[in-house]
């Protein structure tokens, strides 16, 4: 009885969303954390209109990275609480279905954080997008997926290490450097409207393809390494 990939993936995703919705306190805590990050960033960098547009790209993405890492650390928290991961490992369900569902769940979760933080940045830094807003949205989506797909994979690896919370950023940040460069410079290019972010979009697309495939191929090994 080969288990249908899509059905398992959808079931896991809906289960995760239901769990998040049931214990909404985790989401509220995360949203408040994101708000704090934006406010503190606004204090530490004097947002006068002129050059704020140039550094805003960097600030926004570092803030998103910060919030994303805290969210990614929670990826496997529920599976660990009652060793539910063992139940998954024993079942014939494909490991990639679990991975994809977790990655999509994280993507939605981090996107919600970003959707909340962006207007705050616009307010605090009174930003106006000079370039094309649609490519900014595409850049944000590709960038978030780049962080989330690797984040979910490395969160699974860091399950097997001693200091779990610190291990995730240690593994995630070096590998994500090209994605971070692309996101920051792409956003600045669009905000200032000076040059097109086409190269950065292509790079992020390549990054997403490479690491989604890599994760799908290697996740089974990581899941069963106990």
């Amino acid at each position: 009885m080969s288990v249908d990939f899509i059905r398992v993936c959808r079931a896991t995703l809906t289960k995760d969303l239901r769990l998040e919705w049931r214990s909404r306190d985790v989401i509220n805590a995360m949203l408040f954390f994101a708000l704090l990050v934006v406010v503190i960033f606004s204090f530490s960098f004097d947002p006068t209109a002129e050059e704020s547009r140039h550094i805003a790209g960097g600030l926004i993405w570092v803030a998103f990275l910060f919030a994303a890492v805290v969210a990614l650390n929670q990826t496997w928290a529920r599976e660990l609480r009652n060793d539910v991961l063992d139940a998954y490992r024993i079942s014939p369900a494909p490991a990639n279905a679990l991975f994809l569902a977790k990655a999509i769940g994280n993507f939605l979760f981090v996107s919600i954080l970003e959707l909340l933080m962006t207007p705050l940045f616009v307010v605090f830094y009174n930003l106006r997008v000079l370039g094309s807003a649609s490519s900014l949205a595409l850049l944000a989506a590709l960038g978030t997926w780049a962080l989330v797909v690797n984040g979910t994979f490395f969160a699974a690896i860091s399950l097997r290490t001693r200091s779990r919370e610190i291990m995730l950023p240690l593994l995630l940040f070096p590998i994500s450097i090209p994605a971070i460069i692309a996101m920051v410079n792409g956003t600045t290019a669009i905000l200032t409207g000076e040059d097109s972010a086409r190269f950065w979009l292509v790079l992020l697309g390549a990054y997403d393809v490479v690491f989604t495939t890599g994760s799908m191929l290697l996740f089974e090994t990581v899941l069963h390494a106990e």
Partner: protein
Amino acid sequence: MNDSPEPAILLRGLSKQFGKFAALRRVTAEFSAGRLYCILGGNGAGKTTLLRTLAGLSRPTRGTVSLLGETDFRAASPKIGYMAHPSLLYDELSGMENLRYFACLYGIADEARCSDAIRAVALDPTLTRAVGQYSQGMRQRLSLARAFLNRPEMLLLDEPFSNVDLTSAQAMVRLLCDSRDAGKTIVVTTHQAALLDGSADEFVWMDAGAIVNRTKDWKLSAGSASELI
């Protein structure tokens, strides 16, 4: 009881070590199908490690494990029902939601299977309370229901009766006996051997990672088992 010639579980020199500590020491044993085995032993005797290795959750350091004729641990696991100390359930979901999700993992879409499993352990399928608020005994019984869900050929149950009241425990034993008679191979580890008196086909005594004795009756601890029941 069908004595199928080829044993359900075949262990050859099975060892499992965590660094220097040897949880299992070159265990060689055969367990035939359609039988209920009760594994007894003090803490740290290796009972849980043995079950986890049988379930394919931890790989042996040395030696081989063959289950239902398969040596690749991934091939046999769908035919296995496993129950451990932790509940392997989501606390925020209700009983039915949990089972519906795990049924999906086994490719089972039919709702009735879940409600039958819950009724089999004398729980109410319409209970909407989250599993987190269940009593420990109820959670154990739901965990047993989860292990039954995929109609496994083999059941590996790690102390299923702990924190369960006497009547429910006896109901669980009857359930295990019926499954054994239906041909399932069942391996149970427990500290309450008395519950399985007369039901278990064989009592296996473990000490310090090795099987020290196998008897028909749990009272006769002829072997060196220091197990205090």
